[in-house]
């Protein structure tokens, strides 16, 4: 019963919105907001398996490459900066500055150096989504409980064990927060990088549809993008639940204690 109830609650609003859109747009004459039925037809026709292989897969590959690189760079650099007060003080203003530059602005600049290939797109993604990871890692490392650190020290837990068994897990929840923020930014940048200079990809395809006035197809692309973002964030949630099982439990226990 409870499962059914939860399903009902989860599905209710989306269904209402969907039906609402369908009804409101049913006899839409406007060139730019075609009926939902038309969009769905276009969706079926446009996003065939072949199209997904040709357009979506390259986008996803670039996304994953960029995201992975950003994660490694962000966590690595974040650990170093978080653990070294002086390094932090020196780099903080510079990092703040670079973080504040909107990544799309840098697309042309990065193109100057990295050309127009996949490398450029990956660099754009890395540059944009490394910041939340980096900053959250730094904060997480700084916030490691002093008692935890002293315990580790008094039992002579040092070197790699200190890093992997104490500091990384302790900063874990915050690092994951950064990774989650970075994921949505990475998707945005995937699209933006493909809007500037590309010959395939989801962002490119949407722009092509828009330029060639294939409006239902363009809408179908936007919907696909939404579904993709949703699926990725779902995947992320699953992974997070596994990795941070201890943290969720801890929070739960703390809340129950009240």
């Amino acid at each position, binding site marked *: 019963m409870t499962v059914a109830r939860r399903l009902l609650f989860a599905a209710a609003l989306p269904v209402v919105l969907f039906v609402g859109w369908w009804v409101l747009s049913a006899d839409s004459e406007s060139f730019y907001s075609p009926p939902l039925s038309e969009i769905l037809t276009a969706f079926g026709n446009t996003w065939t398996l072949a199209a997904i292989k040709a357009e979506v897969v390259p986008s996803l590959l670039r996304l994953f490459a960029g995201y992975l690189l950003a994660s490694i760079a962000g966590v690595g650099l974040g650990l170093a900066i978080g653990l070294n007060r002086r390094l932090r*003080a020196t780099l903080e203003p510079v990092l703040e500055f*670079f973080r504040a530059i909107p990544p799309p602005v840098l697309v042309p600049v990065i193109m100057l150096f990295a050309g127009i290939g996949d490398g450029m797109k990956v660099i754009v993604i890395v540059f944009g989504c490394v910041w939340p990871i980096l900053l959250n890692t730094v904060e997480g490392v700084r916030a490691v409980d002093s008692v935890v650190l002293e315990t580790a020290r008094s039992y002579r837990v040092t070197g790699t064990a200190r890093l992997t068994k104490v500091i990384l897990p302790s900063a874990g929840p915050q690092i994951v927060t950064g990774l989650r923020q970075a994921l949505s930014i990475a998707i945005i940048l995937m699209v933006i990088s493909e809007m500037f200079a590309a010959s395939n990809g989801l962002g490119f395809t949407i722009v092509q549809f828009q330029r060639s006035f294939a409006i239902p197809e363009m809408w179908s692309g936007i919907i696909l993008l939404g579904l993709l973002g949703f699926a990725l*964030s779902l995947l992320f949630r699953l992974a997070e639940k596994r990795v941070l099982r201890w943290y969720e439990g801890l929070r739960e226990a703390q809340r129950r204690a009240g």
Partner: protein
Amino acid sequence: MTSVRRGNPAWLGHPAFLGSAGLAGLLLLIELLPRLGVVDEQYLPPTSAILAALADEAGTGQFWISLKDTLVAWGWGLFIAVAAGVLAGILIGSVPVLRELTASTIEFLRPIPSVALIPLAVLLFGTEIGSTLLLVCYAAFWQVLVQVLYGVADVDPVAYETARSYRFSGWARIRYVLWPTALPYVFTGVRLAASVALILAITAELVIGSPGLGKDIAIAQASQAVPTMYALIVVTGVLGVLINLLARTGERRLLAWHQSVRGEVAV
């Protein structure tokens, strides 16, 4: 990096000094790279050329109008997003049924990249400031909403029961317990939203061509005016730093009682 040993004067280790040293190092690097021929001056002009271009820009009226346009779009977008996000967050967060009903929809709408809405914004508002506003609001709204939801969920049951046991009215419970608990989260949300809003404002201007700094950057680029382009990029960066600084200061003022701020002061 050379390590500063104990014997050296204290100011060598001061954060402000180290920070300035870091910035100065960056400026020097950008000056030297093109001068030494490591990169072509056409792609990356030296610091001096960028600064000169910046000075030129600052002398034109257009620059200030664009700056104003960007800030207006950013400010309004942020304001609308924060107001809507806070209201919706408190409403949804404090009514369990609403929270359950909306959870899946929020999960679906939130990750939709705001840039996917660029075509939509263009259709609705053309290249007017409205397009920028739409994108800015959309992107910033989720940041605030999600944080407020976290905040409302974080209300300490003991504090809440204390309020009940002293017979606080419903409004008083929101005003004196719920809101102060959620406030730090609201601030985090606003801070995140402020930077996202700036990014989106400039992206929209750049991609759509609505008025503002982003459009100027596009024009500078199209005109092959590389130092000017860099100068404008620097302006956006500085703008971002200032906005972040402002948000942090406000946060520190208003949340002096909160753990995170206390912690920062102690360090």
